[in-house]
């Protein structure tokens, strides 16, 4: 057994920020970062466009708060948003001190760019590889803390709770297949989102909602899971993201007639240079719906991977593209054979981000003693029904740091975990894995088949447009898939680097997360933010200005609700 004070699950933006925050509290504390991939492989690495904070005199905290709350369709907790906005600038400056190579203005200040739904330029960026640079800066900086120990390529399978308190985790050492107990006084989940429950997503293979499912199984409710963000501009086929930064720099969306169709949906008037919150700089949920309506009108292109529109960057010119959007050029050239300097890029909406997650307060504390969560896996909530682009990297930093500090404070008052108890719990977990996977004979179902059917069910029932009977069918299908999963076939019985076992465990987690999403969606009988129901097309503040909480029961999720915290911004109609 390994023992530490604080255990981080996840080495992405949130996990590393939390680890450093905890490590800085005292050099006597021992911090473990447990991650199923080497930290710099975490999905934060893929984030492109930028990270938002009030960095200029022309901006104000209230304005950023208002944009965020408005973007969230009033589902964000306004006290949390205010904390977030206030601490965001300091976090970005801290990252600057840690070496992040931000793009700069001529006077040496960190540059800012426009982003969807933001009313001023406030998104800091490092060309169009912001997440990559953030993650590497955090990872490299984390190396200088002697009290951070990394468990690289350890797959956490469950939280170990003793006496109603989380006291550690059970994790498979992927190098030798051994299940280890890692004990700690507090555990922080920073396991990222779960976009892989959908077939077509910008999310990396590792984004399987593990942390959400682990908390859910430990009795913690998942909050606002019905809110799944579609990003309007992914490459057809692969789902590779073309950053919103490309529209922030002035890119245009055009239908098959070469017409900037967003003007038909109340986002106009079209202008040559970008105007904040208008046209292509509208929020993601609205832009994704506009795409679907264009499709319904027969005004999109048709390709081997379905309908798409054009993202036109040609008028920006080669120089701007090379300087501000080099990765977009690289990705489009490589993966669809299109050089955006000369041709428009084919794009379509694609699943991108989960607003929902583990229910926490604004210190990252979950309603289970000793458990914290931060980053995409948590729902504080500042993102409400629709996250604004470039708020989530900042969220990882602000709430990662807060959770790290809060966990240290909590841990200070805790005694050492009982190793006997934890080892017994780990043995139970080992038996479960043996029974379910490693020593099970005669399984028939293929992992890939169940995964694909789950993804299809999610797209059909919980996509951009949702309606009662589809969602019911999806909920039904997910139950059946859960049944079939118990008959899963594992051919690989090797100890070392058994990726079939981890794939099965990921699918196991995804099925839980998918069910929470589908049931939360079914029960929200209104349209708000990313959650659009054709049978309830209006927002209904009377009945649904409240957070969904999904609790796990043997028969599927049980749904209840929690009020949204409103402080200074009263709900109004969301118009751009």
């Amino acid at each position: 057994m390994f023992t530490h004070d604080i255990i981080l699950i996840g080495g992405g933006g949130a996990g590393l920020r939390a680890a450093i925050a905890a490590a800085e509290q005292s050099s006597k504390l021992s911090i473990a970062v447990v991650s199923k991939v080497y930290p710099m492989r975490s999905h934060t690495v893929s984030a492109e466009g930028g990270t938002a904070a009030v960095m200029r005199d022309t901006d104000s905290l209230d304005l950023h708060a208002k944009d965020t709350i408005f973007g969230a369709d009033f589902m964000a907790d306004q006290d949390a948003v205010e904390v977030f906005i206030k601490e965001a600038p300091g976090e970005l400056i801290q990252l600057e001190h840690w070496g992040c190579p931000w793009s700069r203005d001529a006077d040496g200040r960190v540059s800012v760019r426009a982003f969807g739904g933001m009313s001023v330029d406030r998104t800091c960026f490092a060309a169009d590889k912001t997440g990559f640079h953030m993650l590497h800066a955090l990872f490299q900086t984390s190396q200088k803390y002697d009290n951070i120990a990394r468990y690289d390529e350890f797959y956490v399978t469950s939280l170990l709770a003793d006496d109603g308190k989380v006291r550690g985790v059970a994790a498979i050492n992927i190098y030798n297949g051994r299940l280890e107990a890692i004990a700690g006084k507090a555990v922080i989940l920073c396991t990222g989102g779960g976009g892989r429950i959908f077939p077509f997503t910008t999310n990396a293979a590792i984004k399987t909602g593990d942390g959400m499912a682990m908390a859910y199984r430990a009795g913690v409710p998942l909050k606002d899971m019905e809110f799944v963000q579609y990003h309007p501009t992914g490459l057809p086929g692969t789902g590779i993201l073309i950053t919103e930064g490309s529209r922030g720099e002035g890119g245009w969306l055009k239908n098959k007639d070469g017409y900037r169709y967003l003007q038909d949906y109340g986002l106009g008037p079209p202008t040559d240079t970008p105007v904040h919150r208008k046209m292509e700089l509208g929020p993601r949920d609205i832009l994704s719906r506009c795409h679907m309506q264009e499709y319904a009108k027969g005004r999109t292109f048709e390709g081997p991977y379905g309908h798409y529109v054009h993202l036109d960057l040609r008028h920006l010119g080669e120089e701007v593209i090379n300087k501000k959007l080099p990765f977009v050029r690289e990705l489009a050239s490589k993966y669809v054979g299109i050089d955006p300097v000369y041709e428009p890029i084919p794009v379509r909406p694609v699943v991108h981000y989960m607003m929902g997650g583990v229910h926490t307060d604004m210190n990252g504390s979950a309603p289970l003693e000793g458990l914290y969560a931060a980053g995409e896996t948590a729902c504080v909530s500042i993102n409400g029904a629709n996250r604004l682009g470039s708020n989530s990297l900042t969220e990882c930093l602000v709430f990662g740091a807060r959770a790290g500090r809060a966990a240290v404070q909590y841990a200070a008052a805790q005694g050492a975990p009982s190793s006997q108890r934890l080892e017994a719990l780990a043995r139970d977990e080992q038996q479960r894995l043996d029974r379910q996977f490693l020593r099970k004979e005669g399984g028939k179902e293929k992992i890939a088949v169940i995964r694909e059917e789950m993804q299809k069910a999610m797209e059909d029932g919980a996509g951009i447009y949702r309606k009662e009977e589809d969602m019911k069918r999806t909920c039904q299908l997910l139950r059946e898939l859960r049944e079939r999963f118990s008959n899963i076939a594992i051919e690989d019985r090797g100890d070392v680097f058994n990726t079939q076992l981890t794939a099965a465990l990921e699918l196991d987690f995804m099925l839980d997360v998918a069910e929470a999403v589908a049931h939360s969606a079914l029960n929200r009988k209104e349209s708000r933010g990313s959650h659009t129901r054709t049978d309830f097309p209006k927002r209904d503040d009377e009945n649904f200005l409240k957070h969904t909480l999904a609790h796990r029961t043997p028969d599927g999720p049980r749904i209840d609700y929690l009020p949204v915290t409103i402080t200074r911004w009263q709900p109004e109609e969301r118009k751009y």
Partner: protein
Amino acid sequence: MNGTAVRPDKSKLHYSKMPPTWWLKKPAYLFFMLRELSSVFIAVFLVILLAQIHQLTKGPEAYAAFVQKLSSPGWIVFHITALLFALLHSVTWFQSTAVVMPLRLGERELPRNLVLALNIGAWVAVSAVILILFLALRG
């Protein structure tokens, strides 16, 4: 403590060795080996040059006899080879200079090939001047 806490069990890893013929696998590797080899030829050439100078101190006959020996076909082949190697060495040297010392014009870095061309141009010019001086002094 800091860093990777648990590592793969070394006894279970497979370590592969580079085959002795690794440098034949890729033109770049072969080129590299030739460049390394070039130093041998250049060293031998320098030893001969020293010997030649040494013969000068022994008087005109000894020197003539030495030069006579050097004009055998074998030695001529050697000298041509050494010259080619010297050229190879010089070109790769200039290539590396282009990498090591990038030239900037305002914000932009000049293309490496241009820097290389400038270097080689200067080298050819200097060599030409030396050759002309040599011919002029002789004549």
